[in-house]
């Protein structure tokens, strides 16, 4: 009996490897039936298609969420903050970006951002979206059609110039705004996007000269728009009557709704930057929400202490500040780092808006610089501090092992790279914006006349009234 069971064991030992061809197809290819090979290939393709289906579904939803952030998110947020006579003018500025930047992006913007070029700018291989079809572009996102990637990135290109409109609210000509921001999209946005995310970009995390960690656009979107906003509001000058007269929001209700749409839409902005329905998207989603919440609390408490009352405007501005700051960090940090980043951003940006703006006297009407410029800069630097390879092993050695990401991993040098990214964003924004402002001003004039400013943009620029409560 003992001998028989030994024989049985031996048979099993010899038999099992022969019965498991799926585990070592290369080694036993010669011994497999072609039918099994075909079945395996079909299964592999089905798995890949399932992966792509999940990724593409999330990416298309994310693209829609990011567009929602512009229209109506930003349109409402900014619209509620201006005087009633300027509500339509303000909303039209965001809406115009939805139309104009789309066309510019399709013609040349995408190619200049994501085509192959040099360290500074892409190329012309994709002008008129040539070559951008439904198969994936493995340079950027290997599991989704390139058109998904292109249209997702387009939504970022739309909202970035729309953010700038907050600085020059209530005083810029519609025509001049359209020309200025359309050109800005090509001269500042596309190059910055290329440098940070494009193949061969100077600041690209994978292979750039100064590998900069910017998950969803802290520098590309927020620093560029915020700094350009500051330059523009200083160039254009203050609104008539500012700061002697106070111009309180005509509808905090609209701004509140807009801010909540921004918060929800930001899940597409940050979690969608994982470019797939992955656990990295989950990380970014959680970090985004945590930062918004902590920042809203931070600004609210800071204001409560400073002024004695917590305002709704402070609370929603705090949330936005946290969302801005977490944008570059969202796919790199741990959840409690996100809470801390949000808290710091809420307090820091409130200080920028309360203390710094009034002390320096510039009329950044809707705090585009105070929240986006300052918050983006802060967030980009904090990303260098808190980026953890355990969340996202973005830096790898030649063997594919994960290297330390940020200071929290011991890689303090990353702060310098982040600084480089921020510095380049500031320089490009200042230079590009000044050139464009000067050129457009000379060509058609930027600012509305004092009479038109007094009459309001709705009537003077659009011949309409936002509210006709008597009709």
């Amino acid at each position: 009996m003992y001998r028989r069971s030994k024989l049985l064991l031996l048979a099993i030992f010899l038999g099992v490897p022969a019965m498991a061809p799926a585990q070592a197809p290369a080694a036993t290819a010669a011994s497999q039936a072609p039918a099994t090979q075909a079945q395996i290939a079909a299964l592999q393709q089905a798995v890949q298609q399932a992966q792509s289906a999940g990724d593409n579904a999330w990416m298309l939803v994310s693209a829609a969420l990011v567009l929602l952030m512009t229209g109506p998110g930003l349109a409402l947020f900014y619209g509620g903050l201006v005087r009633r006579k300027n509500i339509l003018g303000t909303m039209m500025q965001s809406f115009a970006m939805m139309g104009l930047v789309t066309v510019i992006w399709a013609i040349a913007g995408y190619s200049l951002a994501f085509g192959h070029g040099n360290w500074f700018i892409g190329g012309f291989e994709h002008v008129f979206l040539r070559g951008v079809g439904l198969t994936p572009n493995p340079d950027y996102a290997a599991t989704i059609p390139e058109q998904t990637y292109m249209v997702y990135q387009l939504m970022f290109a739309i909202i970035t110039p729309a953010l700038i409109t907050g600085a020059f609210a209530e005083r810029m000509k519609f025509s001049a705004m359209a020309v200025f921001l359309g050109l800005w999209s090509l001269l500042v946005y596309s190059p910055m996007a290329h440098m940070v995310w494009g193949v061969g970009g100077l600041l690209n995390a994978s292979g750039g000269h100064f590998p900069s960690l910017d998950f969803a656009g802290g520098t590309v979107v927020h620093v560029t728009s915020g700094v350009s906003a500051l330059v523009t509001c200083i160039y254009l000058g203050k609104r008539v009557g500012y700061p002697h007269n106070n111009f309180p929001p005509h509808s905090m209700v609209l701004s509140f709704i807009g801010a909540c749409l921004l918060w929800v839409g930001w899940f597409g902005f940050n979690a969608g930057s994982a470019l797939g329905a992955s656990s990295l998207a989950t990380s970014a989603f959680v970090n985004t929400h945590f930062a918004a919440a902590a920042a809203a609390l931070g600004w609210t408490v800071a204001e409560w202490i400073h002024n004695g009352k917590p305002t709704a405007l402070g609370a929603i501005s705090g949330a936005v500040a946290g969302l801005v700051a977490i944008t570059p960090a969202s796919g790199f940090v741990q959840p409690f780092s996100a809470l801390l980043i949000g808290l710091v951003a809420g307090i820091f940006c409130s200080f920028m808006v309360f203390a710094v703006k009034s002390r320096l006297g510039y009329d950044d009407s809707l705090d585009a610089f105070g929240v986006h410029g300052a918050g983006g800069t802060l967030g980009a630097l904090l990303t260098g501090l808190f980026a953890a390879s355990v969340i996202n092993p973005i830096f790898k050695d030649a063997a594919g092992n994960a290297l330390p990401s940020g200071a929290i991993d011991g890689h303090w040098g990353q702060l310098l790279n982040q600084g480089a990214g921020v510095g380049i964003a500031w320089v490009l924004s200042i230079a590009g914006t000044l050139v464009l402002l000067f050129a457009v001003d000379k060509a058609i004039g930027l600012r509305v006349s004092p009479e038109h400013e007094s009459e309001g943009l709705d009537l003077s620029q659009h011949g309409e009234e936002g509210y006709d409560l008597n009709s």
Partner: protein
Amino acid sequence: MVKIEAVLQPSKLDAVKDALLEAGIEGMTILEARGHGRQKGHTEFYRGREYTVDLLPKVKIELVVHDEMKEKAVQAIIGAARTGRIGDGKIFVSPVSEAIRIRNDERGETAL
């Protein structure tokens, strides 16, 4: 005929309307207004800066009544609107030279 104009706190509108109806006065015009007398405004916050809002919401009632009804109307308004604090409002009385009913061209006191 006299015209009575009363500038009131908005919160007193319902009480004043009821009091006038009880006094037998049915016709009136209500306007939303902003203004202030000696009453100071309130402070609001915008971006951390405190500022004073001194154009406060008010309600204005206008009625045209027979001379005999004037005192009754005024007393009805005062009774309903008075709180004793600054900001209660004011009443102005002025003579009216003509009143016309649009529907049938009635003129004079019968038009009221």
